[in-house]
């Protein structure tokens, strides 16, 4: 194996991992604010993929412009899901919120398969590639990684520099105390859930610019988000980005040393072990 192959794999892993990272960031934000594991995260990612695909192939919109629209729709969808499925059971035992979000998963997947079928789609979008000293990088992946950094920065500015962002952190910290300070917690929770699904739809949209997908693809990425979320510590958005990069690197480098199909085995065993040994995540975060 040449050094170039290794370097290409590392760079690819970094770029794709950052996209995994923002999907996981959405999951971990929702967990951090309201202690809900969102089992509809994967289908929302799949909707993001289809959103970009349809706007690009149907209306000829630039995928990155389409992504803006998809992000907005993702935000609104999340707020809708919150008010319909979650608000009523937010204080109920975990089983209720898990099943409520799973029922949303079933509804989206059911509608999706009956409308789009499960045949694979591909946007066929390309920005060419750059070659530096024998290392090839797909430009779509490079742009995707830049966008994830912008989104992460935006999320941090929102959480730490704006009033609604401070409300979100206050509610995450202690909902009862936040309510006593006059914060309408249900609006803040709905907004947080919306931001979580927005991140999922952005990640889905970005994945659609370089991978082919089906309506069921979301579940694979949802499982990756779980792994990443646990790796970075559930409730820790920056940890999710780092976790995503670590997972991306694993997926980039491991196939060079072993059969491709063994990689998920290692990932899931790793996931179980982290949960058992350090449930608060390798990189810290709220437990």
């Amino acid at each position, binding site marked *: 194996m040449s050094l170039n192959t290794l370097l290409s794999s590392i760079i690819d892993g970094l770029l794709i991992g950052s996209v995994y990272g923002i999907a996981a960031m959405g999951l971990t934000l929702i967990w951090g604010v309201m202690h809900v594991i969102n089992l509809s995260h994967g289908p929302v990612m799949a909707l993001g993929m289809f959103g970009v695909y349809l706007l690009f192939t149907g209306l000829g919109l630039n995928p990155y412009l389409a992504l803006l629209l998809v992000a907005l729709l993702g935000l609104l969808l999340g707020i809708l899901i919150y008010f319909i499925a979650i608000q009523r059971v937010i204080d109920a035992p975990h*089983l209720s919120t898990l099943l*409520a979000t799973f029922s949303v998963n079933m509804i989206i997947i059911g509608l999706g398969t009956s409308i789009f079928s499960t045949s694979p789609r591909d946007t066929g979008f390309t920005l060419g590639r750059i070659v530096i000293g024998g290392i090839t990088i797909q430009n779509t992946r490079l742009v995707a990684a830049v966008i994830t950094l912008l989104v992460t920065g935006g999320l941090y500015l929102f959480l730490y520099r704006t009033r609604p962002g401070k409300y979100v952190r206050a509610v995450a910290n202690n909902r009862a105390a936040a309510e006593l300070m006059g914060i309408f917690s249900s609006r803040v929770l709905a907004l947080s859930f919306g931001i979580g699904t927005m991140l999922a739809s952005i990640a889905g949209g970005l994945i659609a610019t370089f991978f082919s997908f089906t309506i069921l693809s979301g579940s694979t990425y949802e499982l990756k988000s779980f792994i990443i979320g646990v790796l970075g510590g559930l409730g820790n958005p920056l940890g999710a980005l780092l976790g995503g990069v670590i997972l991306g690197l694993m997926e980039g480098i491991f196939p060079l040393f072993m059969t491709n199909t063994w990689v*998920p085995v290692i990932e899931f065993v790793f996931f179980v072990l982290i*949960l058992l040994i350090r449930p608060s995540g390798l990189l810290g975060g709220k437990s």
Partner: protein
Amino acid sequence: MKKWLHPGLWLTLAILLVISIWPILTRDAALRERTFTILLAIVMASSLNIILGYTGYVSFGHVVFYGLGGYMGVYAIDKWGWPLPAGVLLGGLTAGLLAFLLGRAILRLRGAYFALVTIGINEAMRTFVSNFQPFGASTGIELHFSVYKPYGGAAEALWLTYYLVVALSLINILLSYWVRQSKLGLGLMAIREDEDAAEVMGVVAPQYKTLAYVLSAILPGMLGVLFFFKNGTVEPKDAFRLHFSIEAIVMVMLGGQGTVLGPLVGAWGYQRLRGLLLTTNWKIAGLAIKDFQLVIAGILLLLIVLFVPAGLVGWLQQKFSKLRRVLI
């Protein structure tokens, strides 16, 4: 002895017998196949109920026991020429052993962390078996037609698996009832309500939980062997289908978690509804109903979670206190 006289137990057993006896009386193979899937669902739901309903631990990976048990049993039948009953026992034993080994470690995790780790274990097992050569890796194991010979051919073997699955569901209901009435069950329900308080009151939580987990794992392990023996093949994606686990949770919720009758009613209702939706030919806005049976099931689940979290049996018990004497 007195505790075995509870009318709720007899009512549950009577319902189960009515469901399972029709195919035997009519010798109708199509009806037998339909009933087989209902009984399959009953065993999955009722065994899951021991850890989910009685103990309050949400397992999303219940299917791992079904899958691994099924694989072990089919492997023994195929490679070592074991008879079916021995394979079934081996499946149950394997699943129980897996639960025992995992139990001590993972039952320390609570709430959503436990749910996540059970998903992880199932996926780890699925991807591992997909690479494991002795189990045929991703193509799985295909049973040779000759394994059905000792049972009088494939047609007779199907009847045999049916009788065995009926027996398994009877055992399951008895087990579920025994757990609920025993000191173990009391301990488990105390853990469900408040684990820390239960420990202070002298419930040895780790041992109780592990025992409940092992008990809930054995029957799905045996069930897997029966299903895949009947099926003739076993593949990783069928054996460790996460969706099947979640369907089992839906059944338990539908009927009523933490009751003996609930999972049975829930499994029956869910499978009937599924069958109905899959075979209906209505159209709404140009889309056939059978294409979005998942949507209807999802809406139904959401309505139950939001408005009737106790499930049908739990709701009846709350609404009509007299029914508590006959429903359990």
